[in-house]
């Protein structure tokens, strides 16, 4: 408007920024392209540099295999089986982890009663539970969901506890001198105050539950992307292994993205970061 000099300064400053904004995606895409080329060359020349590429499928083989697999219905059965287990396990872990975490963080009594067993079991990797899980649960599906739940549960519960304990006591005081009772404090202060930490827990938990799901499927599954990938090795379909791996990677990435987007939507007060680190 009338303040041309004021407007001028940031506009000039923005020019190099725009250039950087254009260059960075190109750099990143080139980086990925370079990896693909290296992979292609290694398989093309059957490199044998202690690590051996003779049996490794080339990017082209994998692409052909992927087109074939995604054109057939049977591969989707595996994907859907894995997705169902992950969301079921993750949902159970969220309800249990957030619920227990809030109670443990809020009440010393609950912390003394409920926390010791959690602390005791936490160092055991979820995959180590697979044999016991097969014995405990009547179906293959329920035992794999159990492992998935277990993996997500610990990061969620610990981050929730951490979030509740980290709430500024002054905010609790402020609420009480504005007339808030215990229930209102929990709803209006504790829950939103712990939310950023809870979302971090969900994000970490989602990653861990994918690791657990794939491991459990490889060991004891009859369906699922993990099972598919392991079986492909057994039946010497090496391209399918890589398609399975990439599918797992993409699904895991999309799941984390969903958590991040939902989290950002639930916490509009946090400053927006364009590049929230995964």
């Amino acid at each position: 408007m009338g303040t041309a000099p004021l407007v001028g300064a940031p506009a000039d400053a923005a020019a190099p920024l725009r250039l950087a904004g254009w260059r960075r995606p190109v750099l990143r895409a080139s980086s990925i392209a370079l990896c693909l080329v290296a992979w292609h060359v290694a398989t093309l020349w059957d490199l044998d540099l202690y690590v051996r590429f003779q049996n490794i499928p080339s990017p082209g083989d994998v692409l052909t295999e992927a087109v074939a697999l995604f054109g057939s219905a049977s591969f989707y059965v595996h994907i859907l089986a894995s997705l169902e287990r992950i969301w079921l396990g993750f949902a159970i872990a969220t309800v249990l982890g957030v619920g227990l975490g809030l109670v443990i963080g809020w009440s010393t009594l609950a912390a003394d009663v409920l926390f010791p067993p959690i602390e005791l079991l936490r160092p055991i990797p979820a995959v180590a539970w697979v044999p016991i899980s097969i014995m405990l649960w009547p179906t293959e599906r329920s035992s794999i969901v159990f492992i998935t739940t277990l993996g997500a549960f610990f990061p969620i519960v610990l981050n929730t506890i951490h979030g509740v304990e980290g709430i500024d006591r002054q905010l609790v005081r402020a609420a009480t001198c504005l007339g808030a009772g215990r229930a209102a404090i929990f709803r209006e202060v504790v829950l939103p105050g712990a939310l950023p930490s809870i979302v971090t827990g969900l994000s970490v938990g989602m990653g861990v539950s994918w690791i657990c799901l794939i491991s459990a499927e490889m060991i004891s599954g009859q369906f699922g992307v993990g099972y598919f990938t392991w079986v492909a090795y057994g039946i010497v379909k090496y391209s399918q292994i890589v398609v399975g791996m990439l599918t797992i990677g993409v699904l895991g990435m999309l799941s984390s993205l969903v958590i991040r987007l939902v989290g950002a939507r639930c916490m509009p007060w946090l400053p927006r970061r364009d590049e929230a680190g995964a």
Partner: protein
Amino acid sequence: MDTVAGRIEITDLGVVFGRDGRRVEAVRGFTLMTTPGEFVALLGPSGCGKTTVLNAVAGFVPPTVGRVVVDGERVAEPGADRGMVFQQHSLFPWKTVLANVEFGLKMRGIGSLERSLQARRYLSLVGLAGFERAYPGELSGGMQQRVGIARVLANRPRVMLMDEPFGALDAQTRLAMQELLLGVWREVRTTVLFVTHDIDEAIFLADRVAVMTARPGQVRDLIPVKLPRPRPAEVIATAEFMALKGRVLAQVREESGRAWTAPRP
């Protein structure tokens, strides 16, 4: 009823904190009465227990001995009749400015339309109309404190407790906030108990200044400030103000010196 609300009676208050077997006596034999609608400043060296007195009136800290009575009721726990404005960072970061100011009304079960109406009135009183939808993190420190004041006043408390509310602000903003507070207080007549270590601030704002001793704190002197109201900022350059300041300064320096040299009990 409204005309008599806001009488604080603090009688022989003593507060002892026990930490790790170590006893810290923050306040001893503290007595102070305010009349409804009065503005009293609690002034003293740091660590003299002035915030502890405020916390006892708020109900955050139980008296070890003595008692705190507000309008005939003994203080036992925090309540909406005694709102506190903290030094900083006391707004709910996840609530918008409007929702922060509405908080007390929401706790009283007032419908959303009515509380939005009332909250907006107090926001414009502190000069923040138009910032309803902002989050506290998007405001400057001075603006956040103004929201904190509006949040307490919207609750129509009998007593507004202020714990060095402008202590974290720069000098310019602090001066503007002091003038704003006097303007708001003229509109919303409520008893104010204002803790500060700033002598100018205490005299400029208060009807009476309670100078506290070093820890364990008690009232050393109660000095009435007869400067006429409304008080323009220029009042701090008048001879009357200077005379008062000299008197208060002498007392505060004596107590600060004592706080430095006093052996631990």
